[in-house]
């Protein structure tokens, strides 16, 4: 059986001056079209490495990634990336940043007027039409990330890759952006891989949560299916048994079974902290 995205037994070893470092060992993951996947794990576990390999920004040491049965060898607009720190060009306006992507990707397929319309459409999708003429330093962190999402969506990607997209934002802004992301996902049905540190965010947004074991030689530890009906309501879910069960599974994995080895914390302390959280 073929899959929309097939991450097939990929391993990655980095060679540096001080020796080699095995980041990933035989990571295997199949994703269907339209799925929302979260990658979660302690920092340094290789989540970003997986994402960068799928984006084509890093190559694999062994194994391969196949999108629509085609092997990924280089970066391309069919796998748009939303970066953690928005990565907007500070010398371009909000409109200009989206336009740079649109004009490069659709150079041969869209007319000028169509491009303009498409840029405006994508800015409207993330509620940023009002700030089209603003420079990135004139808008807030949350707004910058909205523009980053608009730019990625404007490439009409088969796969949207989000690298801790809301990690640098305050809780309220993060909640707003999570809602926007859910709306967009419902509307466009894109396939998304999102890296996150936030357990609630992972459960709220995802169809499946992929938990990675600690590096070096990280692998897929466990996958949690989130069988919650969509659209999901943040407030209603707070009391939902299924939601809390998923949350519990992820917390168990992160804090008990795969405690970060070099922190030197007492595992009992974590169990206590965990039951408090739950």
């Amino acid at each position, binding site marked *: 059986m073929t899959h929309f995205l097939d991450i097939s037994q990929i391993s990655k070893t980095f060679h540096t001056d001080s020796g080699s470092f095995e980041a990933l060992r035989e990571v295997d993951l199949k994703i269907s079209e339209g799925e929302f996947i979260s990658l979660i794990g302690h920092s340094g576990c290789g989540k970003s490495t997986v994402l960068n390999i799928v*984006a*084509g*920004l890093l190559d694999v040491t062994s194994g391969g990634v196949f999108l629509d049965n085609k092997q990924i060898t*280089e*970066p*391309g*607009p069919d*796998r*748009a*990336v939303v*970066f953690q*720190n928005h*990565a907007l*060009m*500070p*010398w371009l306006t909000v409109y200009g940043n989206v336009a*740079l*992507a649109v004009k*490069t*990707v659709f150079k041969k397929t869209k007319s000028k007027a169509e491009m303009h319309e498409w840029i405006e459409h994508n800015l409207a999708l993330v509620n940023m039409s009002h700030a089209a003429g603003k*420079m990135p*330093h004139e808008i807030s962190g949350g707004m910058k990330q909205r523009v980053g999402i608009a*730019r990625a969506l404007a*490439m009409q990607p088969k796969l949207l890759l989000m690298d801790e997209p809301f990690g640098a934002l305050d809780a309220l802004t993060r909640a707003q952006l999570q809602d926007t992301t859910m709306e967009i996902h419902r509307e466009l049905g894109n396939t998304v891989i999102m890296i996150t540190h936030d357990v609630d965010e992972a459960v709220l947004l995802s169809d499946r949560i992929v938990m990675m074991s600690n590096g070096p030689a990280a692998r897929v530890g466990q996958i949690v299916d989130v069988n919650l009906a969509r659209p999901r309501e943040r407030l209603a879910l707070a009391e939902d048994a299924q939601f809390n069960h998923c949350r519990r599974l992820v917390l168990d994995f992160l804090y008990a079974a795969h405690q970060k080895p070099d922190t030197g914390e007492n595992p009992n302390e974590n169990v206590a902290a965990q039951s408090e959280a739950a």
Partner: protein
Amino acid sequence: MITLASINLEAAGRRLPMLFARGVVPAAGIAFFLLIWHITANNIDTSLGKFPGPAQVWEQSNSLYEEHLEQREKAERFHERQEKRNAEKLAKNPDAEVKWRSYTGKPSFLDQIFTSLYTVMFGFVLASAVAIPLGIACGLNERIYQAFNPIIQVFKPVSPLAWLPLVTMVVSALYVSDDPMFEKSFLNSAFTVALCCLWPTVINTTVGVAGIDRDLVNVGKVIKLPPMTHVAKIVLPSSVPMIFTGLRLSLATGWMVLIAAEMLAQNPGLGKFIWDEFQNGSSNSLARIMVAVVTIGLIGFALDRCMLLLQRRVSWDKSAVLR
């Protein structure tokens, strides 16, 4: 009304310290310097008389300006005479051969300033045209950087005066033309300036280009920007601040180098003016050299400010503190 007046007063009160810092303090600094200069100058006796104090230097700067006006007048009279003479010749005999000569009087101090400015700009533009592309190539490609780095590091600390004899010989060997566009001495100093102007721009451009935010480069990769568009849309804008840091250092170096080169190459300009006054050895010479010293400083400062203005125009980062 009372509150309004008090607000105004408050604002004025806040502005006063700023005015103090911007105007009064520097003025006091200059006054103090002039005082020390005046006192020390009076106590230094040289074979050309007392070391010039601020008053003598001011006097000489005026006399240099007057000499400039005099020279202008002489030149004008010369051209008038020549025109009249040629016209008379042609009136007598329409087929007569008339000669047009340019005025060859001694260049005035102001003429020397303009020659120096022209020479330094020529060398600086030449150097920048090589340095910026080279810096971009070094910043983009680690291999190119590794190839060029030893050469850059070795030539960077070389004094301009070491280059000058070589440049002179090469120019006189290669630049052979019946109707030369440039004077050889001009090319000598301009090339020497260029050789010394290269390095700060190359190094700073390299650092700027190599230090571009990885994420921005990755955005370019994801949207598959063609290489030249990548340079134009991402590399250049993001390294503009560093390029300008390099350009400003280069221009300052070039201006310092030029004075030394002019003294040695006997190219007309401020350096030659100083050398001639030194050889001249009149009682006014030291004061006239001091005028040149202050002028060189002021022009160097003005050139730097011009680059700063240019940077403000070109750079997207208007909020950056430019010093």
